């Protein structure tokens, strides 16, 4: 009998079926990866095990922990299991901790809730647990508050809360999705170590095939609330019997077809020379000038017409600040930014004629539209940059053209943004960027929030648009595989500086700078199908 056995689990929320006949199991010491896109029901499966489902949920089937059906237990009995035998780690470490309680108290609380331990005893266990998740006492005393820690450190505290009592089963719901790749690699290593040490069963939920395939023993693929395929991680990717598994695998490593850009002129479209951007920090003294933080430090690069340039780096490296400077949203302290040889700023004003030549697509397809405007009006927003924006029929025609060029329909212009899915919204964002026919499009993590299959479609669209309109892209991302698939050249940024620059293939295949090497080493990789077949033969 397995440690945790999910049998024919069905879940409905307010009558809407969410999970259908989900069955799989976990054994002690085993890592099971649950993979699926948004809406596949992978998180709801985890919440069903924890019995932390939203109101109005009804479940049938069985979830057996050591033979006891969790669905039959009372809420009181479940409270006794949660945190003791069942631990859970969540996606968003920045908000998963109570901001007004010290990390020591929060870890100790797990102990105090379940054991009749004194405060001193539970704090001692908390200390031990924080040591186990590699937060040593000298740098991370129990009295620290969450806001004093980085995202990766907070995630370690969340893990410590979950494993303080050495649970039999740990559920990790996208535990590294919000983290940088090097931090992600460290957290995954930690989880693997804890599984080995405690002989714990780990249910690792992720949308990222590469993360899971690196770590898991067994893989469960979910789609629309059902399990479509399960198998050993070693063999699943070779066999891949279900078409959805194949599709997911292909989308994850999708490389769009791009025509070789040959029409490049000698003059660069964007030329950034010796740009530095300072932020004032809070004053430390009433009379001294406030100290400064240099977010971007002496950065120089250029983009040729029709080229696609990648900019990679971890959070806080200055890539967003640089983007804002290029778009003229912030002034820089030193250096110049030229578009077609003309500076973006004249005095303290952004030049409109220059600003027309660039547009931006942001990461969040949900937050970057005014929900009260119709799509046609949203798409027309960049028209305020034009001296004589088209009106009447010309305007309607421009909207139709922009929407059609991203694969949407003219009629979609009359709808509101909430009627569209994330992928469609990102298409609308691209249409909005295209409508004034800019030369440069800045894509700021433009596909990071999308599911892999949607991401593949958007990447294809971008490649196609670039070929058709001769667009130039500045592609900013933390996701190395995406940057590799869509850019010609790449810049690697660290602590405000560009540490490596070169042709994308060359940089990825033979990184020169130690930081680039560590980034590439940390990035999880999909198993190569060909390679695997050879191994198995």
């Amino acid at each position, binding site marked *: 009998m397995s440690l945790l056995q999910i049998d024919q689990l069905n879940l409905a929320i307010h009558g809407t079926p969410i999970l259908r006949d989900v069955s799989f199991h976990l054994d002690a010491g085993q890592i099971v990866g649950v993979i699926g896109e948004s809406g596949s029901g992978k998180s709801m499966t985890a919440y069903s095990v924890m019995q932390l489902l939203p109101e109005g949920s009804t479940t049938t089937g069985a979830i057996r922990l050591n033979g006891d059906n969790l669905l039959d237990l009372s809420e009181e009995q479940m409270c006794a*299991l949660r945190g003791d035998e069942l631990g859970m780690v969540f996606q968003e470490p920045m908000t998963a*901790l*109570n901001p007004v309680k010290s990390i020591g108290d929060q870890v100790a609380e797990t102990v105090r809730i379940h054991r009749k331990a004194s405060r001193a005893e539970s704090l001692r266990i908390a200390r031990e647990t924080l040591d186990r998740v590699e937060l040593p006492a000298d740098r991370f005393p129990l009295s620290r508050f969450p806001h*004093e820690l980085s995202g990766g450190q907070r995630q370690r505290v969340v893990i410590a809360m979950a494993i303080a009592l050495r649970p039999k089963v740990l559920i990790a719901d996208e535990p590294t999705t919000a983290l940088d790749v090097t931090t992600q690699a460290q957290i995954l290593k930690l989880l693997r170590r804890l599984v080995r040490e405690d002989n714990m069963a780990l249910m690792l939920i992720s949308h990222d095939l590469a993360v899971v395939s690196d770590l898991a023993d067994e893989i469960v693929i979910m789609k629309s609330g059902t399990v479509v395929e399960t198998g050993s991680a070693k063999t699943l990717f070779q066999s891949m019997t279900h078409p959805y598994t194949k599709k997911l695998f292909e989308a994850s490593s999708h490389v769009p077809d791009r025509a070789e850009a040959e029409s490049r002129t000698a003059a660069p479209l964007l030329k950034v020379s010796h740009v530095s951007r300072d932020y004032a920090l809070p004053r430390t003294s009433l009379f001294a000038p406030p100290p400064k933080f240099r977010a971007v430090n002496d950065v120089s690069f250029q983009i040729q017409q029709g080229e696609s340039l990648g900019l990679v780096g971890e959070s806080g490296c200055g890539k967003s600040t640089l983007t804002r400077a290029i778009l003229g949203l912030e002034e820089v302290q030193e250096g110049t930014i030229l578009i077609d040889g003309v500076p973006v700023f004249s005095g303290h004003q952004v030049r409109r004629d220059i600003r027309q030549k660039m547009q931006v697509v942001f990461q969040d397809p949900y937050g970057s539209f005014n929900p009260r405007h119709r799509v046609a009006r949203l798409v027309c927003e960049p028209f305020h940059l034009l001296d004589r924006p088209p009106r009447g029929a010309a305007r309607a025609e421009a909207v139709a053209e922009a929407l059609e060029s991203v694969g949407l329909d003219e009629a979609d212009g009359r709808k509101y943004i909430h009627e569209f899915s994330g992928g469609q919204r990102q298409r609308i964002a691209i249409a909005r960027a295209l409508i004034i026919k800019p030369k440069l499009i800045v894509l700021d993590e433009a596909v990071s929030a999308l599911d892999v299959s949607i991401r593949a479609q958007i990447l294809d669209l971008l490649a196609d648009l670039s070929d058709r309109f001769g667009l130039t892209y500045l592609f900013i991302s933390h996701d190395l595989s995406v940057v590799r698939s869509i850019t010609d050249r790449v810049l690697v940024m660290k602590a405000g500086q560009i540490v490596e620059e070169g042709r994308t293939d060359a940089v990825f295949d033979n990184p020169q700078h130690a930081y680039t090497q560590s980034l590439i080493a940390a990035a999880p990789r999909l198993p190569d199908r060909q390679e695997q077949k050879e191994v198995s033969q």
Partner: protein
Amino acid sequence: MLRYTLKRLLSLSVSLLVASIIIFLAIEVVPGDPASYMLGINAQPDTIAALREELGLNVSAVERYVNWVSGMLTGNFGTSYTYRTPVVDMIGDRMWISLPLALYALLLSTLIAFPAGILAASKRGSVADTLVMGITQLGVAIPNFWFAMLMVLVFAINLRWFSAGGFPGWDGGFWLAVKALTLPAVSLALPQASILARVMRSALLDTLGEDFVRSARAKGLNRRQALWRHALRNAMIPVLTIIGLQFSFLLAGAIIIENVFFLPGLGRLVFQSISQRDLIVVESVVMLLVFAVVIVNFSVDIAYALVDPRLRRRS
């Protein structure tokens, strides 16, 4: 924390300075000379001049401002133009009604609002929640003077549990004075409690939806424990803000209630002084109210930092 407190103290002093200048200027631009108003239309010019001299109105505006501020700092608020008594005594007498009344009302409002708000939030969608929301809706909608009259009708005239108005003074016994302030305090507190309960409920519901509450549940806390140990303290920031605003209002805004219950409080003093052009009293009372409001805001800021460790370090 010390740094934070010092910074708040600095901003408190600046607010007081700015407020004193604004109040002084506002009174300056009001037409009408207090000396001629006091002596009536038939007064001789030289009598008026003599009175102006006596009241200290002959010197420049800057000098008068400095005299006023330095007087207040040493406890000398000047002499009332109409009653010819020291302003500080007039304010002192009334302060002992208005301040206890405000504190009493605030205490009642908090005692009603906290349990009601917490109950409604913890049983969202239940009968209790619907009841709390319905009653507080009424409480917000009905003006407090109407409540006051209703209560006089029921508790003073029909049931004869309380007197309909007036204040016996603190010398007549503590409980007697408290009894006299009870109906006014309740009528001040009910609308305030309704607002506070609604704020408490919505702040708590927001916090209950936060990720860290889910983390707490995953540790094995039940709903109740998650609410009391994790959500409540995080929900306190908006609640403290409202409490601060309400106290300021209770201190200065009780004019109508003081009139309904014939309480000789600060609100009535300002009202009378304005109609009698007793500008020095107006000036001083307004400054005192500003002082109280600023002190309350300062205390609220300190309370924020006690509740939220992130604020302690940021300064």
